[in-house]
């Protein structure tokens, strides 16, 4: 049996490193160009922005370091790595070079580690050079950037280095399983996409085929392949954990690459992959992804008809299988050659789709038991209108709140599952039991009455003291009241007013009881980063402050008439000329399509006295207008 004992040769390492010197130089130049040039542009832009808007600079260092953690930098790193890393073991792909290296008086293990280490060192030296050079550039703009935080700066570069290590190890793994660079890139792509693609397919199958279940497949992707954190600029990931994962994954991939190197036969240069098992695994993996992906696409288009979606899923599974077979075997004859494999594959695909489509496990009927949960995450609901507003979630922990949430859960209506805005409930933060429902106004009102007086709910709803500090303490605050957004937004630069508003709102929230509030009508919405908060007319102090400092009253006298256009047909269905009615309608339009699922919605078009016509994207519903005798 081949020995897997570690051995090492400094001489061989040095020689391999020496041969990489041209790559190192080129890589250093590219990295410097890719960091310093954009950094200079960002800094120049920053200086301009300071002149225009900001009295002082806040977190603008982020702009600079984003350069080494953003998508473009990551894409460049992957491009470099893909081209440079493939070189360490590319000699395996040519019989002449493979034989030459085979004649050298070293064990395979010695050769592997010499090549691996020289490769990673030749890639990391440019990173270290760039780290140092950029530090000087960074220091050069010390004043502008508001101080240099080298721990933070170093942490970013460390993440770059770890990305290099991980991708290089992945390259090594792929290189030792392949017989050419193209095959190597295919393995790398398959490995990178393994987790996201499988989770995407499975999660989307559940999301498309089931009425009330929902899986958020973006979760945890960073922890499976940490460089994704850079791609998606994840701000909330734990860098320590991702770094540890990157190291463990690098070691694992290097180990597997090493086994591949030891076990592969030197003469395997004319095949596509060095091991026939890789061919089979990849073939079925790609077949699964393609067929399930195509099937899912058809199912997504026909989600209102599950039977068609199901048949489409299987038919595309069949077609996908046949096409991939043909591509891998390089002959159309291979499409239906492996009938046994095709049948097994179709059975798997059918079973996979049958579970959600026919709800074999009766999951849709399964209702949660509130006594089992310590907490639930629920779509933020603070008024009937805000229910339709975005995906922000709040976490409830008090037993009464959990009970109310679960009651809401049981009352949810599956028929509305096609609507984008749905009520979501996630017991114990589990992504696998996230359920989605649509709700009626009555249910929402009942829920709000049940939870409003609870501390966990109020804590979740209240505006945090730093809610407006996201862009720095001296930024102009982007702030408007939705109800009057029609008349324009008001930006407020005065920190004191903002603080007073936050304080007043939170005080009103705490001091008002559920019994006193009419949850169906919010007076206004305050837009804060991460979602809106509803202001009820019962929040007297907040309303008073808003009217005094923020709200711009519309000039109703200038309105000659308003036209109500159907939201679906874009045709004028009603014209209102009575000034009182005009005032009422305009006072009650909203930015959001609330209640619209139960009633027809209208867009507003108004004409001023001087004949000027203006279309405005705001909503008012038929039921509301009828209720108030406008129509």
């Amino acid at each position, binding site marked *: 049996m081949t*020995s897997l004992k570690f051995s090492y040769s400094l*001489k061989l390492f040095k020689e391999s490193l020496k041969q990489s010197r041209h790559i190192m130089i080129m890589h250093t130049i590219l990295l410097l160009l890719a960091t310093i040039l954009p950094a200079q542009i960002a800094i120049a832009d920053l200086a301009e922005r300071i002149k225009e808007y900001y009295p002082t600079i806040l977190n603008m260092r982020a702009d600079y370091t984003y350069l080494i953690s953003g998508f473009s930098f990551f894409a460049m790193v992957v491009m470099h790595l893909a081209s440079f890393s493939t070189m360490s073991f590319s000699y395996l792909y040519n019989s*002449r070079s493979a*034989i030459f290296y085979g004649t050298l*008086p*070293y064990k395979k293990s010695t050769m592997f580690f010499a090549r691996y280490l020289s490769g990673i060192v030749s890639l990391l030296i440019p990173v270290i050079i760039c780290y140092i050079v950029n530090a000087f550039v960074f220091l050069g703009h010390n004043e502008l950037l508001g101080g240099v935080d080298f721990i933070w700066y170093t942490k970013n570069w460390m993440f770059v280095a770890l990305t290099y290590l991980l991708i290089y190890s992945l390259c090594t793994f792929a290189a030792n399983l392949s017989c050419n660079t193209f095959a190597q890139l295919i393995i790398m792509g398959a490995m990178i996409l393994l987790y996201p693609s499988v989770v995407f397919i499975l999660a989307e199958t559940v999301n498309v085929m089931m009425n009330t279940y929902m899986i958020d497949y973006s979760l945890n992707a960073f922890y499976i392949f940490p460089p994704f954190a850079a791609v998606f600029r994840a701000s909330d990931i734990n860098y320590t954990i991702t770094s540890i994962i990157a190291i463990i994954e690098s070691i694992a991939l290097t180990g597997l690459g090493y086994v591949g190197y030891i076990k592969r036969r*030197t003469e395997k240069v004319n095949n596509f992959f060095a091991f026939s098992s890789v061919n089979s695994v990849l073939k079925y993996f790609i077949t699964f992804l393609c067929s399930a992906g195509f099937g899912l696409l058809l199912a997504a288009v026909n989600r209102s008809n599950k039977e068609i979606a199901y048949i489409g899923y299987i038919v595309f599974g069949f077609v996908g299988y046949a096409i991939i077979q043909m591509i891998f075997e390089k002959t159309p004859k291979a499409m239906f050659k492996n009938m046994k494999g095709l049948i097994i594959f179709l059975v798997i695909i059918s079973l996979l789709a049958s579970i959600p489509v026919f709800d074999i496990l009766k999951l849709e009927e399964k209702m949660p038991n509130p006594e089992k949960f310590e907490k639930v995450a629920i779509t933020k609901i603070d008024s009937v209108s805000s229910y339709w507003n975005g995906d922000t979630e709040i976490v409830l922990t008090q037993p009464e709140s959990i009970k109310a949430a679960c009651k809401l859960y049981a009352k949810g209506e599956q028929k509305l599952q096609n609507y984008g805005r749905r009520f979501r409930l996630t017991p114990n933060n589990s992504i696998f039991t996230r359920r989605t429902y649509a709700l009626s106004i009555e249910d929402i009102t009942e829920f709000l009455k049940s939870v409003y007086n609870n501390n966990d709910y109020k804590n979740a709803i209240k505006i945090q003291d730093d809610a407006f500090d996201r862009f720095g303490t001296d930024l102009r605050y982007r702030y408007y009241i939705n109800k009057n957004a029609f008349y324009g937004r008001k930006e407020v630069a005065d920190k004191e007013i903002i603080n007073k508003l936050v304080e007043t709102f939170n005080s009103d929230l705490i001091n008002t009881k559920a019994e006193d509030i009419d949850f169906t009508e919010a007076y206004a919405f305050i837009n804060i980063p991460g979602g809106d908060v509803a202001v009820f007319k019962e929040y007297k102090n907040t309303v008073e402050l808003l009217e005094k400092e923020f709200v711009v009253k519309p000039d109703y006298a200038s309105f000659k008439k308003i036209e109500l256009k159907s939201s679906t047909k874009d045709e004028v269905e009603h014209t209102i000329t009575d000034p009182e009615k005009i005032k009422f309608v305009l006072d009650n339009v909203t930015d959001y399509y609330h209640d619209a699922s139960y009633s027809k919605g209208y867009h507003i078009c108004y004409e001023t006295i001087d004949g000027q016509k203006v279309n405005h994207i705001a909503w008012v519903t038929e039921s509301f207008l009828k209720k108030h005798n406008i129509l």
Partner: protein
Amino acid sequence: MISIKNVTHTYEKETVLENLCSEIKLGSIYGLIGSNGAGKSTLLNVIDGIFKPLSGEVLIDGINTYENPVLKDKIAYVPDDPFFFNSYSMDEMAKYLNQVFESFTMEKYKEIKAHFPLESSKKMNTFSKGMKRQAAIIFALSQSPKLLLCDECFDGLDPVIKQLVKRNIIAEVEKNNMTVIISSHNLREIENLCDVIGILHNKQIILERSIDDIKEVVNKFQVAFENPLPDDAFSEIDIISKQSKGSVTELVTRGNKDLVKAKLNDLKPVILDTLPLSLEDIFIYEMEANGYDFSKILV
């Protein structure tokens, strides 16, 4: 002694070598003959420990060559199509080999290189095929190897260089008791260099003969008799081939030349001449005697 013991090697599902056995004496020059695709290169790769055989082993003085850095340091291999780093000159390549092979010395390199008309400072990617082969031989000999493996190394060399290479190889054999295994599909090319010839065919070495022995024991005679002889007249002579044209018979015999001649003289021939016999002729007769069609084995 180099012992090749029951070596079997496959490419994909095709068996190239099957239970191949051979014993090669240290200090000898062994000519490995076979047609294109017979498995000569594969066998050399297995001997050098580059390819791991599916079964069997190659031992040098009882030690397996596969994954054995100490032994590999003493083996030099000149492949059919040698590899050099793209932008390297001969001198740069020599420096690299000097670093990675303990046995490679720059002194020896300079000494061997001096015999060949090559510009050592020129980039080797500008070299012709023949020049690359010369360079590979120079590098191989600079290792002062105990075993030199040459795969079709005379292909593409002009006659003068061919002789130069042969002289250098022989000199190393004499000086260092180096063992050489040379593969070729052309017997004539290596017949005056080798001590032993082995023929690789049908995944095995089907014939292995020492040149001295074979030249000594295989002879060709032309005989004529006054009266036709009975069929069993030559029964005491080991005849490989017998061809009659009228009253003249050509015999290829195995055994001591003088003894065979004496036996033929006992039959009172009117003509008895010894005819010249090339190594290729000898192999043709030997192979035919063993039931092989030599024309299908060598080009």
